[in-house]
């Protein structure tokens, strides 16, 4: 069976849930071969997880060259593996970094690129939601090795424990790929909550919150649900919440089981980032707010009354 390459998505070696999703998907398309790229010493943290989710092989590149420059070095690794291993496809998560790496890989290998797939069938037909999810498209790569960028939360990760063969990739990253140097990394966002794009539940706040400190209401509700916190652009522009948490056309695209919009009007650009959520709940005091046109459950009321009551009620039910 031919290999299906999966670029491992990780933070300092800790694999992200989407990696398990991609490996699960890859198992249906061929023999899953994980590609781990990271700084020296990071692979050890990913090893068990990749075995757990059924990687048959792991290609490992541990070097500062792949960790300290934007995009291009990892694309060189993938392009080399496409040449050496002749895989059926390359699967990459739809994160800001990885979609760029996918694009460069496709360019290097003269292959077709599909982004934001939510499903891929055995004959490599990908399903995409385009125009913010309003049109569903089936598409297929017709040239080279399909490079497919897959949305997080598209497949449920299923464990299939094995013991992958480890292959150290022998590659010298070119100078031109080492031209955009990452000289510092600055953490701004508060964490401890799940990743926005991976979370099963997202609670987002908008202009209706009125002030940065009122985001505490949203955070408290999120924490009772084990949810990630999102924000509308009005809220991030006002500086009430970090822009990394922005949901929408120019923010993150999320597709959780449950999305709760608090004081968000539901502008088309916000909708573009969340309308594929399984269930949408909206709290807004304006009955005419567009969000009510596509919410599964809409509560017309003042969020300052509704949200604390909802938080308490969930706590109570949890016992």
């Amino acid at each position: 069976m031919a290999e299906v390459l999966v670029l491992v998505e990780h933070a300092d070696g800790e694999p992200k849930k989407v990696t398990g999703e991609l490996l699960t998907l890859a198992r249906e398309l061929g023999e899953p071969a994980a590609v781990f790229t990271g700084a020296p010493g990071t692979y050890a943290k990913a090893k068990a997880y990749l075995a757990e989710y059924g990687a048959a092989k792991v290609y490992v590149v541990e070097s500062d060259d792949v960790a300290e420059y934007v995009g291009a070095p990892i694309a060189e690794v993938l392009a080399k593996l496409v040449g050496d291993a002749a895989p059926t496809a390359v699967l990459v998560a739809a994160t800001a970094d990885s979609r760029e790496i996918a694009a460069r890989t496709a360019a290097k290998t003269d292959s077709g690129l599909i982004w934001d797939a939510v499903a891929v069938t055995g004959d490599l037909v990908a399903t995409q939601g385009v125009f913010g999810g309003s049109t569903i498209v089936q598409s297929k790569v017709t040239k080279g090795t399909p490079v497919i960028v897959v949305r997080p939360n598209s497949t449920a990760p299923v464990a299939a424990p094995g013991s992958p063969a480890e292959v150290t990739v022998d590659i010298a990253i070119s100078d031109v790929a080492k031209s955009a140097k990452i000289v510092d990394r600055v953490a701004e966002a508060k964490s401890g909550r799940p990743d926005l794009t991976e979370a099963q539940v997202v609670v987002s706040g908008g202009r209706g919150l009125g002030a940065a400190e009122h985001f505490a209401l949203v955070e408290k509700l999120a924490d009772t649900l084990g949810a990630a916190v999102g924000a509308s652009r009005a809220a991030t522009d006002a500086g009430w919440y970090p822009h990394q948490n922005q949901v929408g056309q120019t923010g993150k695209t999320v597709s959780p089981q449950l999305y709760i919009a608090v004081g968000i009007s539901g502008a088309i650009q916000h909708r573009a980032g969340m309308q594929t959520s399984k269930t949408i709940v909206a709290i807004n005091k304006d009955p005419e707010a567009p969000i009510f046109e596509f919410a599964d459950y809409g509560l017309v009321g003042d969020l300052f009354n509704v949200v604390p009551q909802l938080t308490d009620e969930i706590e109570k039910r949890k016992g």
Partner: protein
Amino acid sequence: MNIVVTVKQVPDTWAEKKLDAADKTVDRVSVDNVMNEMDEYGVEEALKIKEAHGGEVTVVTMGPAKAVETIRKALSMGADKAVHLTDDALHGSDALQTSAALAKVIASLSPDLVITASEASDARGGVMGALLAERLGLPQLTQARKVTVDPGAGKVAIERLADNGYSLVEASLPAVVGVVEKINQPRYPSFKGIMAAKKKPLTTLSAGDAGLDAGSVGLAAAASTVLDANPAPPRQSGTIVKDEGDGGTKIAGFLAAQKLI
């Protein structure tokens, strides 16, 4: 500084976007079209860099004849000149082909800095900056929320958005910069700007003029194909209830009934 900024004409954000029934490419004919909103931020950043360091801003677009409207807008904001790559043969090009075509045009302009926006609102690829860097063999400084150029030292640095903050990324010029909309506040074209735009130099190129091989461009040569396209089942609005002092409890009831809590 010789700055190139890419812009793209897209269906209006508020228009109901469709794929053409026959060839399943984005329908750019039956809808109102505008400059991709994000590109306004790219143009603004190019103008700011020019204002700080001197030089010239050239707008580059690939698109049908009427994409010239978008060029005019960029010129009326203050860009100096423009190149419009337009040819029926280019219709249906995918991102990979578009990047190859744009790279060819851009390379001929020998820029110090290429500025793109992080995403166009039609296909939402978010890949053009990376692809242009790849094709041009230049540093990729995409996802920038802040750009600092030092022409004397031949350096450029950005704050690149990251999941939990940002990275500081540095490179030598020339480079490709991709901007996000947090970077600035785009200016509106002034009346004077609109009048002046009409007289600014505009070069129109066919695929052949740009040195593109006819067999490599357009829908027939694209590396991926759309097999089928259908409207998503419309999202029905669900239950709407008014808060009567028990709104939070009601939502909790709904969530419990859906087994979400």
